[in-house]
């Protein structure tokens, strides 16, 4: 008999989810393409005036990335719920919050991280001043995991329902508002030459809190949804 440890169970889950993403690597690019297209829409609608775009560029980048993340959220548990592997995961002898935490981490790696990578391109398309770019990236690095963690709790709540897409958006977007305010606020402050550290620190504090609490809430929500 060999009973797996918590670490080996998480490693197996991470390996499986990465492998699944790799097998469907075309789908993995969709959020990035979506964010690029949303950003392209703004100059088309507002006109290509660089100064006007530069003023609102940080906000546009954040909203585009937030919406792209929202579209990708649904895939977090849906597939596992449909084929029954979520049931098996809940029945596993290891702490469910830990396993879900690994799942969320992989989800961030495969959706959040590519969005951060593409963010400098988006910022450049909207004439964001280069000096603000490091702040934008720092804010994204703190904000995207938060979006994944908050989102996971709401996905766990709605996973038992069919066609929960709109409901999910209505649940998640209010939770995303503070993240958006602090992240875009940091960039706007940096752009106007003001101190930008405080909003970033708030994001960091929220991330520390969410890293601990969100997997627990996610596990509780999931147990409710599958019953």
């Amino acid at each position: 008999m060999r009973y797996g440890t918590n670490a080996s169970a998480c490693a197996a889950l991470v390996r499986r989810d990465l492998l699944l993403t790799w097998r469907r690597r075309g789908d993995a690019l969709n959020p990035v393409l979506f964010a690029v297209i949303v950003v392209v829409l703004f100059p088309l609608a507002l006109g290509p005036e660089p100064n006007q775009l530069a003023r609102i560029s940080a906000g546009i980048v954040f909203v585009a990335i937030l919406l792209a993340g929202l579209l990708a959220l649904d895939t977090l548990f849906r597939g596992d719920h449909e084929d029954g592997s979520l049931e098996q995961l809940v029945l596993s002898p290891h702490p469910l919050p830990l396993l879900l935490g690994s799942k969320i981490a992989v989800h961030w790696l495969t959706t959040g991280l590519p969005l951060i990578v593409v963010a400098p391109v988006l910022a450049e398309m909207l004439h964001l001043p280069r000096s603000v770019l490091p702040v934008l990236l720092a804010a994204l690095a703190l904000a995207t995991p938060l979006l994944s963690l908050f989102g996971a709790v709401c996905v766990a709540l709605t996973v038992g329902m069919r066609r929960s897409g709109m409901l999910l958006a209505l649940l998640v977007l209010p939770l995303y508002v503070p993240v958006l305010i602090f992240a875009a606020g940091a960039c706007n402050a940096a752009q106007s030459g003001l101190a930008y550290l405080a909003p970033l620190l708030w994001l960091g504090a929220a991330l520390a809190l969410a890293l601990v609490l969100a997997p627990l809430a996610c596990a509780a929500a999931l147990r409710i949804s599958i019953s």
Partner: protein
Amino acid sequence: MSITLVRLSRPGRGASPHARDIRKLMIAGESNDPMPLLEARDLSYSRNDEPVFGPLDFRLHAGEVVLIEGDNGSGKTTLLRVLSGLLAPGGGSVRLNGENLTVARLSHQVALLGHQPGLKADLTPLENLNFAIGVFGLRAGITPHLALSSVGLEGYEDVPTRQLSAGQKKRVSLARLLLVPAALWLLDEPYANLDREGIDLVNRLLDAQARRGGAALVTSHGAYAFTSGSPRRLPLRATA
């Protein structure tokens, strides 16, 4: 193999006197038992105040296989989900090895085979099994290759699971049961989608599970019968 088939009725609305008789019989027959692997007392479950099954009393000992029979909608699947810990019982208690169990405790020794096979279609059977080993552990003396060949899927190790038929997927989830070190198997309609040979396979696996001191609860809507022994039956009946 001592196969047992236990008779269950749904509660309330005229069915209960019958259910009580059966409960008394079962308790009287098993009063001075050794410690059962699984023991349910007064177990019931209600959804939105509608009783789904129970109250039920039954015991399952190591080396026993119990067939739960019932019509569609009689609560077989719900019973297995309660016993596995996926659902909290509405009333009564479930004990595993004499211990009162929370969901987490139960999960250590229970393997559930549900309606959905729980396999990722994009992964091969081997990758699916390796994931199950990582999460649930590995029984001594078996490997994923061995398990796959013993369910008749030799040569399918590296075929994407989406290309397998429903019966072959069922066989992969049976292979997962062979690999994980659970003492109690909860099998929900294990005979569904399987051919004649597959049904024999399930019976052989149940036989082996009983012989190594495990136990199994098996649901069936009655279309398939055990080929050997006279099983203890636990039929559930729908009230409507």
